[in-house]
């Protein structure tokens, strides 16, 4: 299979990116400054992330679309106002997560942002579940740029005036160089920020203008350390086909109004809501400087295996190793002492609250 390139590929090379293959795309893992500097620049100023490899799926046509999508996703789409976004899941019949995604209501339907590695499969699954009744467009003529950090609003406002009035998890149409762009106030770093959906042919000049206004390109390496500090899941690491949203500690994303209704996986979820789950995603803080990566085994104080780390790194802003993983629910309480097996040694650690780094989102209206 040919490796794909995003519309920003030349720009990545121009700014000294180390390129790697990720989900079939050639993507920047880091630029010249390196992961730690890029991470810190995003937290103190603003960072630009090329997330064009992610899927932008537009669905429209037909009065029953909202109803039919609610049979697939556990989100309260009927209550969603135009330009509002929700975090949700595509699940299998066993309640396992096939993808985690963001659904936004648009003027004529819905926009769903999908993970790069899942997008083609998601498209087929959603299309078949909708019985081919609607217009689905996985639009690859559009790039997706995330701008994240405390200065994001000021930088973006200089390039596209007016966008700073957006509330968190809300979007709107704006104009850049006489072309329509769709901007949402969202992101995956634990910072305030935006995601801008823009024509491929305009993406490079748009990003150059963000750079001229003080922002910097940030690679996938820092994106990973930023999302881990923010306690956010990476599909394929922390979420998979055998893990439900309840087990993933993402119960908050399933509104109470939907628990008794039917959607793909609803039977399993309803049962888990009532009876609880055996394993649960937790935050993990090692006592020492040792880093526990994904697949590290977790033990209790009796040397019994109780779970597994799914993501782990050194958190550049919290200046300490951090991890998340799944443990037997009996050990999921904060401050429970656990042991991580790293290179044959048992490293003491504690279950801790997520996120590791406190969020700084701009609050919008409260959505129950």
């Amino acid at each position, binding site marked *: 299979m040919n490796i794909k390139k995003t519309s920003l590929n030349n720009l990545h090379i121009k700014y000294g990116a180390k390129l790697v293959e990720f989900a079939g795309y050639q993507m920047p*893992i*880091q630029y010249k400054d*390196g*992961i*730690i500097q890029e*991470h810190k620049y995003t937290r103190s100023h603003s960072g630009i992330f090329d997330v064009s490899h992610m899927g932008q799926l537009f669905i429209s046509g037909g009065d029953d679309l909202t109803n039919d999508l609610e049979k697939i996703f556990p989100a309260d789409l009927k209550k969603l106002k135009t330009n509002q976004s929700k975090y949700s899941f595509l699940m299998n019949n066993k309640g396992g997560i096939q993808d985690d995604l963001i659904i936004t209501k648009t003027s004529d339907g819905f926009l769903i942002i999908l993970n790069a590695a899942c997008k083609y499969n998601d498209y087929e699954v959603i299309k078949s579940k909708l019985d081919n009744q609607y217009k689905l467009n996985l639009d690859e003529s559009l790039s997706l740029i995330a701008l994240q950090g405390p200065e994001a609003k000021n930088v973006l406002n200089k390039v596209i005036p007016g966008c700073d009035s957006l509330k968190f998890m809300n979007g709107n149409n704006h104009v850049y160089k006489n072309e329509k762009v769709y901007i949402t106030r969202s992101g995956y770093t634990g910072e305030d920020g935006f995601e801008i959906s823009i024509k491929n042919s305009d993406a490079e000049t748009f990003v150059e203008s963000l750079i001229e206004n003080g922002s910097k390109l940030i690679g996938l*390496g820092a994106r990973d*350390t930023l999302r881990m500090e923010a306690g956010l899941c990476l599909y394929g690491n922390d979420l998979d086909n055998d893990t439900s949203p309840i087990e993933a500690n993402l119960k908050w994303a399933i509104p109470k109004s939907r628990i008794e209704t039917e959607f793909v996986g609803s039977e399993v979820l309803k049962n888990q809501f009532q009876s609880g789950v055996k394993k649960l995603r937790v935050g993990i803080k090692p006592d020492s*400087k*040792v*880093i526990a*990566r994904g697949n590290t085994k977790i033990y209790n104080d009796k040397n019994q295996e109780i779970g597994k780390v799914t993501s782990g*790194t*050194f958190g*550049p802003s919290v200046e300490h*190793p951090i991890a998340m993983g799944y443990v037997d629910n009996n050990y999921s309480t904060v401050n429970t002492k656990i042991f991580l097996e790293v*290179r044959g040694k048992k490293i003491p650690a504690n279950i801790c609250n997520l996120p590791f780094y406190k969020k700084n989102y701009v609050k919008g209206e409260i959505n129950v």
Partner: protein
Amino acid sequence: MSEVKYSKEHEWIKLDGEEATIGITKHATEMLGDIVFAELPEKGSNVDKDGTAGVVESTKAASDVYTPVSGEVIDTNQMIVDDPSKINEDPEESAWFFKLKIKDKSEMDSLMSKEEYEKFAKETSA
């Protein structure tokens, strides 16, 4: 006169009489990225040529550090354990990893010279 040689695992070794100082090369640190953790062998322990004698971790991944020669560990560099970023700053001087009392000087013979290593590093990273 001290002699500096290089291994295919990207370690450098400087021999002064019986005392060998070992660290990782600048090229290795550039491949690893920001180093955030270092683990060193225990003082007084014996290490065997090409065996594991430490670990470095970047934000991305963990990598073993090998010893290019056999010997007894006579000193370790606490500075890089306390502040692993020093390894990125000065890998081939102050950020050395450990010192050995070398067991068999002939083990130095199979290692590369600076020129040979530079050629090797360029070829393997291309």
